[in-house]
């Protein structure tokens, strides 16, 4: 099958038919790749919701060179031969994306100082890189009734941006989904509706796919800020998953276990809940070496062997606000 030529922000690449603009842009590199908050390569039908990856198609294809009338979601638009796309080089795209970032933030609690996702949060990166410096929203931010979805995963609905990734994990990786999106519009929320635990061997992957701090690891809750920890590639023999993970250590202690994420923040392979939540002893794992975090956020600044390290004790954190 012949390859298709696509030009994004002036850089040309040839890709296989069926690839989306986003995938092509990622192949070119981070300079032209649009941000994506809801698309996830490993999850079928993901993408299209958040609108952060909007781009401008200035030439549809060699055959039909007409531009597309509206900005399109690059994650759901497939490449045509001869297509020309503008991402960062289009003021219209940059302005629209600023709008999307502002929309995503107007109801976000901005509780980063007490959020476990801080430091590896895609919304932090997104707003830093693509947002405006000040919100113009002056109304009360949305709140939700707190619900308990089980003993391993913490749900903070106020932080959710409704990317649907966790729902797709539950649909595609686990039998008998018990959580989903309920209600409509602005008050739509991730929920189990009734008291119910999200509990099966692969449910923990919901944490890894969550782009924000809406789903976090209860076994790691308030243990440390991620940038104080040392990510190490490690594996173990597991009869349920590949056993390939990253263990996050302070000294010799394992604080948490996650999947291995690529430069776009997507996991290479799903891991099971036993590996994620139960195996916290160094003897459980065979270490392979330091994990390079190829992201722009604060954890990328982690320096192995740095002298200034600090681990917060749970007592020092403002738990009252969080109960």
């Amino acid at each position, binding site marked *: 099958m012949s390859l298709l030529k696509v030009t994004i922000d002036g850089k040309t690449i040839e890709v296989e038919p069926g690839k989306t603009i986003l995938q092509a842009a990622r192949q070119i590199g981070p300079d032209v790749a649009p941000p994506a908050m809801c698309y996830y390569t490993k999850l079928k039908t993901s993408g299209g919701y958040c609108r952060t990856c909007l781009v401008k198609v200035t030439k549809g294809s060699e055959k039909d060179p007409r531009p597309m009338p509206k900005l399109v979601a690059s994650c759901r638009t497939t490449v045509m031969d001869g297509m020309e796309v503008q991402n960062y080089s289009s003021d219209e795209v940059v302005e629209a994306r600023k709008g999307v970032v502002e929309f995503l933030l107007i109801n976000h609690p901005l509780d980063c100082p007490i959020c476990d996702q801080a430091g590896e949060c895609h919304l932090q990166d997104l707003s830093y890189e693509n947002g405006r410096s000040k919100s113009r929203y002056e*109304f*009360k931010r949305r709140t939700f*009734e707190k619900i308990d979805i089980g003993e391993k995963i913490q749900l903070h*609905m106020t932080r959710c941006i409704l990317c649907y990734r966790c729902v797709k994990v539950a649909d595609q990786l686990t039998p008998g989904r018990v959580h989903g999106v*309920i*209600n409509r519009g602005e008050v739509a929320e991730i*929920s189990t509706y*009734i008291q119910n635990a999200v509990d099966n061997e692969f449910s923990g992957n919901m944490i890894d796919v969550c782009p924000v701090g809406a789903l976090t690891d209860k076994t790691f809750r308030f243990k440390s800020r991620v940038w104080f920890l040392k990510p190490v590639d490690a594996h173990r023999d597991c009869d349920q998953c590949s056993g390939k993970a990253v263990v996050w250590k302070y000294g010799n202690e394992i604080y948490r276990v996650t999947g291995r994420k690529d430069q776009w923040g997507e996991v290479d392979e799903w891991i099971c809940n036993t590996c994620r939540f139960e195996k916290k002893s160094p003897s459980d794992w065979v270490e392979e070496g330091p994990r390079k975090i190829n992201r722009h956020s604060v954890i990328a600044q982690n320096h192995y062997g740095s002298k200034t390290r600090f681990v917060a004790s749970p007592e020092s954190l403002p738990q009252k606000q969080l109960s």
Partner: protein
Amino acid sequence: MAEVIQGTRAFNPSTRAGIKFSDEALKTIEALMKRYPEGKHKSALLPVLHVAQAESDGWLSPEVMDYVAELMKLQSIEVYEVASFYSMYNLKPVGKCVLEVCRTSSCWTRGAEDVIDYIGKKLNIREGETSPDGMFTLKTVECLGACGGAPMLQCGAEYHENLTEAKIDSLIERYRSEGRRKSYTDLDYQNTK
């Protein structure tokens, strides 16, 4: 109202109380599911939820939805997701007679607010409330497609247009004497082939 927004979710532990629909309703549900191709019976969920609501005092408790899920061989969450999306399914108990007053542009222009005020004062309830005797619930809704007969309200399957105070009086009188709980759809199951 616009200032504070909060998800309105009935949050109860599931108990799966002994719920059972009438034979007629069950027959209807079976017939509804057969309207769709093999394996696509989930399509019947919306109409089935109307039947379920009619069988359950006009609202869908989590237990009723679990029962629907069982009947249709769906996950309960699939039913919750759908029921909470559409505005006609009540997820909390309602009165025996739900007065749904349209408040969108044409009705609003022709006195919808006065209608809401009038009913509210007459029944001594506010929007969204149920009268203490459990008889009337006053709800405001968005455009019901009767703009030419504005102002209007819907109760069950009935449309009442060109409302005046006198019309509202007699309507409430009639509903009170009927003790109306025909449920929203005023279902007549035979018709569902």
